[in-house]
């Protein structure tokens, strides 16, 4: 390796041999190899990494990657009815414009002097989300809704010094899987026990009888999602919160904020901690790469003390009338506390946080009301037409927001065969629930947003009729 072979790459300025020699001379060595002397010979990788021949020109690289990406079929060129934790809402151009800005895209976590923009935009996210939720504290978001729920459950167990949580069976199964990982422990006495609460298979609502039979003075929190994974609007929020409070537990609710122009925020039915996504607020699905999750609560010291995440606070500066920002009680976090910290925080979802702030600003109060109404009307129009198809049944009645369950038991068809046929018509049918919720038979979860036109809905109906008619 001692003989330098000239290698030039546009991303690496110091590949120029003369520059390298000059730098080596300054260091006082004759070969770069000498700089690796700390690595023992037996740990040195011998030979060359077996990687494909690179596309060194940008054009060839672009052609190569596009040739692979073109094997994907998109929700833009096809008609998509999948939701269930990742949703296709319209992304305003301004959202893309702002998150494409080099200054936001390529910065990391600098100080408020150099990165005031991030601090202020994050504080604005917290403030805007605070209005949607009607809560005074909102965190800088973490990785996803599921991880936010996992953290919030851990917060609740620390706040109550109890180690059991009741979780509704109607929460998103992906969230439940994450929660299970977060609640497990290498130390048996620290393990958080999760008990699942039944739902009424007629209505999709939480079974309060089952809830009452399972709650006890060991219950740290009850966690429900509203709307539920199965689409229904939970109208017993207040009763559920009251039950939690009666036993000294915490009411924890997960929410999709796109609903909050028309649905009551969980704080209005007794929720103490609220978690949720912001992916629906201006962030592309990105094959699930667009997840982001927040935690919110009242502004009470014991709660603040248990947050694992960053909380940006507004403050003032040396200059009269100037806003400043900083990390509230930074000592809580894992950057300072290591194993004594409140769980952990790290690189989370900064760019999506900024994007969601832009979205909420664009929408304003009326935008949220309009989108809620538009979605509800479209989704109910879809169920109205779908329920008229022979062999199709809509489960759980008509109290849902954007998602609902289409059942094919009467047509004697599996969701898989139906979806296969729909795919031939360039339609991505709803998510197959038959293994996640076997009690619902051949059911699938459909999602309708403001992006589905009357024509799109007719196309689905037409295609389903054709499929089931065979």
């Amino acid at each position, binding site marked *: 390796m001692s003989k330098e072979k000239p290698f030039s*790459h546009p*991303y*690496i*300025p*110091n590949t120029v041999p003369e520059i390298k020699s000059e730098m080596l001379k300054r260091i006082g060595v004759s070969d*770069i190899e*000498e700089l690796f002397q700390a690595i023992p010979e037996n740990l040195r*990788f011998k030979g060359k990494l*077996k990687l494909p021949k690179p596309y060194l020109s*940008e054009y060839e*690289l672009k052609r190569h*990657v596009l040739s*692979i*990406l073109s094997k*994907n079929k*998109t929700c833009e060129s096809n008609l998509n009815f999948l939701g269930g934790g990742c949703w296709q809402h319209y992304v305003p151009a301004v959202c*893309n414009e702002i998150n494409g800005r080099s200054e*936001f895209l390529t910065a990391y976590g600098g*100080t408020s*002097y150099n*990165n*005031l*923009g991030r601090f*202020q935009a994050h504080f604005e996210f*917290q403030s805007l989300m605070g209005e949607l939720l009607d809560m005074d504290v909102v*965190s800088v978001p973490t*990785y996803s*809704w*599921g991880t936010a729920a996992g953290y919030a459950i851990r917060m609740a167990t620390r706040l109550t010094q109890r180690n059991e949580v009741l979780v509704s069976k109607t929460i998103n199964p992906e*969230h439940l899987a994450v929660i299970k990982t977060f609640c497990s422990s*290498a130390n048996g006495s620290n393990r958080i026990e999760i008990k699942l609460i039944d739902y009424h298979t007629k209505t999709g609502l939480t079974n309060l009888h089952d809830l009452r039979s399972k709650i006890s003075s060991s219950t740290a929190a009850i966690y429900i999602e509203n709307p539920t994974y199965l689409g229904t*609007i939970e109208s017993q929020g207040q009763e559920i919160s009251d039950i939690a409070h009666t036993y000294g537990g915490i009411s924890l609710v997960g929410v999709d904020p796109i609903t909050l*122009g028309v649905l*009551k*925020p969980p704080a209005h039915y007794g929720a103490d901690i609220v978690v949720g996504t912001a992916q629906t607020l201006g962030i592309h699905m*990105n094959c*699930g*790469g667009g997840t982001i999750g927040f935690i919110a609560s009242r502004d009470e010291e014991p709660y603040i003390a248990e947050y694992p995440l960053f909380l940006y*606070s*507004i403050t*003032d500066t040396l*200059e009269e009338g*100037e806003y400043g920002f*900083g990390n509230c009680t*930074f000592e809580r976090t894992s950057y300072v506390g290591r194993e004594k910290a409140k*769980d952990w*925080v*790290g690189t*989370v979802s*900064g760019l999506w*946080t*900024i994007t969601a702030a832009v979205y909420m600003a664009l*929408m304003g109060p009326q935008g949220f009301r*309009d989108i809620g*109404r*538009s979605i*509800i*009307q479209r989704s109910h129009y879809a169920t109205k037409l779908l329920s008229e198809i022979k062999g199709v049944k809509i489960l759980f009645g008509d*109290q849902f927001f954007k998602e609902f369950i289409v059942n094919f038991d009467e047509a004697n068809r599996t969701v898989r065969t139906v979806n296969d046929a729909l795919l031939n018509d360039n339609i*991505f049918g709803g998510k197959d629930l038959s293994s996640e919720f076997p009690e619902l038979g051949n059911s699938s979860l459909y999602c309708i947003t403001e992006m589905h036109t009357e024509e799109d809905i007719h196309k689905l109906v037409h295609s389903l009729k054709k499929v089931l008619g065979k």
Partner: protein
Amino acid sequence: MKEDIKLKKYHSPVWSEPIIMEMGHQGERGILIPEAEEEIKAAVGDAQSYIPQNTRRTTLPKLPEISQPQILRHFLRLSQENLGMEENIEIGTGTATMKYSPKINEALARTPQMTEIHPYQDERTIQGILEIMYKLGLFLSEISGLDQFIFQPSGGSLATFTNACLFRAYYAERGELEQRDEIITTLFSHPCISATAHAAGFKVITLMPNEEGYPDMEALKSICSERTAGLMVTNPEDTGIYNPRIKELVEIIHSAGGLCFYDQANANGILGITRAKEAGFDACHFNLHKTFSSPHGSYGPGCAAYGVREELAKFLPIPVVLFDGENYHLDYKRPYSIGKVREFFGNIPAVLRAYAWIMGMGAEGLLEVSRVSVLNNNYLAKQLLEIRGVVRYYDDKNFRLELTRYSWEKLKQDTGCGTDDVRRRMVDYGLQSHFMGHQPWIVPEPFTPEPCESYSKEDCDYFAAVLQQISKEAYTNPEILKKAPHNATTHQPNTAPLNDPKRWAMTWSAYLKKKNKRED
């Protein structure tokens, strides 16, 4: 050499933007939503009727009402008040590898073939994405020597948590979980290792460095026992020091029956140079937003590739991408899996960017990345160590790899100006402040620059020249540093309210409430 460099005049943008909650007027709209078509409305009627009475929102959220140009202007101005890697010589932010994220890769990540994909789509319709995930996994296997990778953690800390969960599952299966409840790390490993191992239920034992900066081997032997679940470490550590006895460290843990995890969040100095496998590690992770060029996005979303040896692959989070020679599949049927650490498959746009980056570099390019990073770091060391007030801690027998822990201890003793003062003054020269190092700061007045391969010799010289100038100012007129920054977007914040329940405010509404209360 540094004396010849003329420092540029700089002032960061000052827009004095209001908080967005203060903007706009009632009735303004930022965007309009497609109303349901007339036929739909006629068929279903009022939307409200489908919402149970007691769950209807009766008063609209108190969001601001602002028109689109004003919103755009506001956020563009905030962006200008944010210094990105692309706008500055971001050598200061060490450990984070602030490398160039190629624009072409960003353009590819923003095509509908990436953005408009739902993770539950039929496998047949996402073969492109699965192929990229699978192939990046193969590349990382080659780079690390480990056998199977997944991308579910969307940040480095979530990867170390994933690892702790995997260790947990491994011992649970062997019936040793109650016995093996200790994880060993080193002080100069990332603090998230301690935090996440603890969150997963382990006791954490932190190995302190000896005078040379290496983890103390004798101490390791004394703490290693039948209770040891494993080791979770970085190498080179936060100090830039590569521990040549790393294999020995791993062997001590293995002989006690423990597992070893290599935190390679930053692997920028060792690509094609040394691998996790040869050092004996069982698991590792790479941050795609560091070594593999995905942009940092103002604190995420990141993506960590987490990989393990074959024997541990059955514990990986689900799903895992498999290839049958013709098609790619998502494998969920893995009964030993730890389950999920995050929804779906991970931050896939970052996976795409990393794939494209490696395909644009090749084996020779990756090796060059590490060689040049290490060259830059040692070149910069020569420049920095000539600056009055700068010292380097620990072993000077060996060269550091991709970054170096320095100290302004001498400057502080001589002038009263320490690392924080220098950090604030750097802002006035258009540089992102240097990162001190992770806590606890046992190296006094620390700073940790990382001149990765994206920076030219001139960039290194300029960075050093700025620090030299600041040192000169500290010795001649320390007040300049004490009052810095002078040319920045904002001034020193009042930090007292951040820890005061009566004054902290995480939302505008809380701010107003507390302000009004004080004024009453």
